[in-house]
């Protein structure tokens, strides 16, 4: 290496790649139900656990699940874990204020809905065990646009957030197994 600092050439190369994927048939049914005001999942025929949304298989037993295994769960549940995120700017980011990122265990489900917003309560009062209910969009404003095969946006564009129900907190022991 020579002593003189070499000037490094820097070039910006912006790349845009477009990915278009149809929802799987299972997720299509899930979205139809969501728009209709119902939250459905798949119940594993082997272990009985309920996954929302259904994936077409039980990740614990690795057995396939189908429409026949579809069950409905409530739109109420419990916050089992959360954080408040201070947003960072990057291409595609729309958030500018600290936002809630909570896992919600719906009554009847064994898997949690991740990345949910919680409204109607100051951020510093949100806590694990908080009982919540879904804040549904008016029917005409619901769409499946934000639901993807990748697990992002599991209820987005239909349920915008969860709000406290006012019930007493859920006993910690009941959700210790579902903190994510």
């Amino acid at each position, binding site marked *: 290496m020579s002593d003189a600092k070499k000037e490094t050439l820097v*070039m910006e*190369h912006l*790349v845009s*790649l*477009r*990915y*278009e*994927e*149809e929802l*799987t*048939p299972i997720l299509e049914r899930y979205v139809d139900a969501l728009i209709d005001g119902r939250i459905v999942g798949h119940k594993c025929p082997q272990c009985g656990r309920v996954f929302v949304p259904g*994936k*077409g*298989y039980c*990740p*614990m*037993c*690795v057995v*396939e699940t189908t429409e026949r295994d579809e069950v409905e769960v409530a739109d109420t549940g419990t916050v089992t874990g959360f954080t408040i995120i201070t947003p960072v700017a990057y291409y595609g980011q729309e958030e500018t204020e600290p936002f809630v990122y909570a896992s919600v265990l719906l009554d009847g489900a064994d898997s949690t809905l991740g990345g949910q917003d919680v409204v109607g309560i100051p951020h510093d009062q949100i806590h694990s065990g908080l009982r919540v209910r879904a804040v549904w969009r008016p029917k005409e404003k619901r769409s499946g646009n934000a639901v993807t*095969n*990748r*697990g992002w946006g599991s209820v987005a564009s239909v349920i915008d957030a969860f709000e406290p129900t006012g019930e007493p907190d859920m006993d910690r022991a009941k959700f210790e197994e579902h903190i994510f």
Partner: protein
Amino acid sequence: MSDVAVVGWAQTPSVRLARESEVQLLVPTVAQALARANLDRREIGFTCAGSCDYLTGGPFAFVSNLEAAGAWPPIAESHVEMDGAWAMYEAWVRLQHGDIDTALVFGSGKSSPSQPAEVWAQQLDPYYLAPLGVDPVSLAGIQARALLDAGKATERDFAEVAVRSRHNAVDNPNAQVKGDASVDALLAEPYVRAPLRKHDLPPISDGAVAVVLARGDRARQLCERPAWIRGLDHRIEVHQPGMRDLTASPSTTLAARKAGYDGGPLDVIELSATFSPQELILREALGLDAGANVNPSGGALAANPVMATGLIRIVEVAQRIASGAADRGLAHATGGQVLQHNLVCMLEGE
């Protein structure tokens, strides 16, 4: 070196567009491969997967694929950002340690959600090549042109590769592009990227494949006629296409030699030639004669689920050995563009 054999396998039919998610494709494939090997997933000593985040369009895409392997209770597992054939390489190396007897390997990819020509254009030197907009089909076209200019092949030779591939694929329920075409009819079609025509290019495919390996006596317990891996090697060449002879594949020749291929008779050869001229290059690199039984499955021109294509070649050879139809075979996998990285697997019945 421990003797390791392929004792189980399964693949999905390659399709232009699979409505299921990649994991949904893998779940039954893995289950079938295990069933064929008479193993429960909990008996497997090591698992390795091959996939590419950019095919899926998101970071950590391979994390979901883990669900197909059944990663609870916890498993010893790894992943390569490469075709499943290299995941098999890693598993084969792991088995040499001697402390475990079985391994599960899978490769998968859905090319349908994206434009492959755009995605693989980013698989190039980011300073000197990608910004030029070099796309994989054009690069393959340059390779084809070099072959023609060197007098090593004609466009008719390319078309004949395609005709043979489609004809062989008729008997392959997992192949996507199949049928009987005439060389002249194909040559009458317009160029896509001269001198390449549509039939010289691979299809866009979604698919998955899984393989179960076992060591020594365990393999004999699990499978009536295991397909023994007699040699496995891979070699990479320089990346800059301008710095190598695109009409030859010295890394394939070297990998084959290191894998123990001595030029002797082969009952079946499966080559990952995704563009028809590449089959000619690979045949020459391996010293195959005109009568060699190349790509009875139809090869990569008949089905190209990227990240699974190479491992499928191994499966196609292994299953023919297991059925007794063949005794000795060679499977080839490739990575990168215009044959930059090549893997050769020698398989034999006992």
